[in-house]
């Protein structure tokens, strides 16, 4: 195997890890190359990558909101106070 290929070769698990980081814009340029290289021939990585991007997209589209921590504490206090 050529030296260049060896540098780019990552395991399926590592590729998935890079793919996760990419969803949050936290993968380095080298990592992105490694993932792209693996995507050329690994079906499992390809399938994971597709689903992972879809999940990111769905989360963006859904515009999910969460309640403030303080608000939740206040709600719990009121519920406890009721009984």
């Amino acid at each position: 195997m050529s030296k260049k290929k060896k540098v780019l070769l990552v395991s399926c698990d590592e590729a998935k890890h890079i793919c996760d980081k990419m969803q949050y814009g936290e993968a380095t340029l080298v990592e992105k190359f490694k993932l792209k290289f693996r995507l050329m021939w690994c079906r499992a990585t390809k399938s994971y990558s597709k689903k992972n991007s879809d999940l990111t997209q769905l989360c963006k589209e859904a515009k999910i909101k969460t309640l403030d921590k303080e608000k939740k504490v206040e709600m719990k206090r009121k519920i406890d106070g009721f009984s």
Partner: protein
Amino acid sequence: MPKHKLNPSKWVDLYADYLFNYTISRVNDTIIAEDLVQDTFLAGLKSAENFKGEAAERTWLISILKRKIIDHYRKINSNKGRAEVKMDLHNDGEIEGSWLEQKVADSFDMNAEDALQNKELGLAIQDCLTKLPKKQAEVFIKKTIQGMETEDICKELNITASNLWVIIHRARTTLMDCLENNWYKNE
């Protein structure tokens, strides 16, 4: 024997965000949505004795919330709206506001509504999030929904960055599978 039981001490952890998202997509105002969720929990406590265990706890709370939302719109609505309140709710001589709290029971039909609600993407995701282990849901929400930095989450939860990525990976894998069933098949 009732299939479902109420456990109010867990309501906030289990359902607050779900109810909040349900509300905000209908009233479009964070403060009002927070108040309606709070009111829903209190109304749930007041009518707990009417819960027969036929519907799931969350479904029953949603049914209360729906009426709270309708009530909210009636209050802010035109004179016509106010007239409806008078006609519909006070003809049996009850005092204002008590029509709901003492009367909300649950029925078997309510369970069918769960499937319908999952047609809303935000709620389908929320639903899947509640199926994750607590730690995974917490990390995923902080990172993905709240957009917190990896470093800040690690500090707050006292975990390493590699721990965080393992947790995120597990959460994402579970969510992908869950949404496959909960969202894509419903589309």
